[in-house]
């Protein structure tokens, strides 16, 4: 299985607001806590307006920040996994 080709998307049952300096996300399920994101997490969220593979996400962010893809990948992959654990992103395994 090539995890870099899994498709990542924003979770559906989320209520959120994009503010200039932060992103507020509240899962719709009762009792869930409000999550405030900043920094690279917001960039990842913005890029995921359209679902895409991890590879595509890394490539886009690397272009956007003019950084080596390997450096971006080392930052973004754990971040994506953290957001998945919080229920903010979903992953569909590559076929």
């Amino acid at each position: 299985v090539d995890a870099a080709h899994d498709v990542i998307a924003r979770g559906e049952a989320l209520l959120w607001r994009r503010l200039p300096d932060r992103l507020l996300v509240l899962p719709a399920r009762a009792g869930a806590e409000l999550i405030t994101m900043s920094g690279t997490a917001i960039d990842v969220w913005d890029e995921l307006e359209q679902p895409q593979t991890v590879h595509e996400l890394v490539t886009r962010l690397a272009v956007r920040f003019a950084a080596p893809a390997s450096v971006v990948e080392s930052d973004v992959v754990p971040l994506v996994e953290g957001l998945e654990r919080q229920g903010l992103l979903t992953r569909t395994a590559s076929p």
Partner: protein
Amino acid sequence: VSNERTVHSIAAYGLTALTHPFPDAPIPAAQWTQVIEASASHRTLGYAVRAVEDGALRATDAQVEQLHEAHARDMRHAVVLERELLAVVALLDEAGIPARVLKGAAVAHLDHDDPGLRSFQDIDLLIAPTDIDRAVLTLARSGYRRDLPARTDTWDRRFAKDITLGASSGAEIDLHRTLVPGAFGFRIDLDALWAEGQPFEIGGRTMVALSGIRRALHAAYALTAGEATPRLSAARDLMQITRGDDFDVDGLIALATSWRADLLLGEAVRRVPRDLGQGCVPPTLVHWAENHRPDRWQQVARHTYRFAGGTNTTTLLGGVLGLRSTGQRAAYLRGLMFPDHPYRAARRAAHRPAEWRTGARELLRRTRTP
């Protein structure tokens, strides 16, 4: 440039050339705080944030931080309200009760460029009169508490404008039977109000709002008969909803006329340029409003509302003007003047003043005012 002008310019930001340009330099801290508080009460903080981000409204770093914090508070509340909205609509759905999302939660998603631009402080849902008792019961069983019992056993489904319920989260939910109190509220054709909803999505769930022309007319009610001092967000909503070449101006005018609300629509349309500047609403609508002559019934009904010098009491009593049969009028006045014991007891327990005393004072004051 006065604070008031700055607050109006914020509410109008991004529309056309501002009638009142922003100050050239950051305003003093005390004034800035007042501008933020006023914009929060007008539900337009999102436009202040955008104006600052664009560099149109000058602010110091500390002022920007203060604004961002105030806006973030509004937005945290907005998403909490939306979660409550999802829960309420799910409960109503399970009970087979349809609902239309009204006002802030709907227009923020449908009519403004970003939902972060439009704050709101409660949830408003339209419920059909035949479902309203069941809706209140359904929500009460799940822990929502109404602020006061019904005035009479048939009041909610026959005469109430809305019923307020509180959630354990602190959110306020208003279940509306109609859009405004008093005479104009009773002239709204509720079947026509329910026709042609517009779907939209919140938190992955599809909700239904009123159609565009109905949302526009609701904003016009809010700018006139809804409040003594309307919020600037209502003017901005009306502009946002009516912008675009495909907006059905003729349909809006026809609907307002059929509900005997063309006077209110005309006043609202004439008010928007005063609030937000020229060129904000479709020219055909402005032309119609400037040349429109409402009928005598509407002119009389208008005077019962607070925006035209009336009081809460005259608005409520004026409701008889909008009811069509003697039986309805008698039942309405009976409910107003002699509400059931649980209603009176709950008001006393909440330390609310006796209605007849407040009403008599208001009427006396109005009679004495030249």
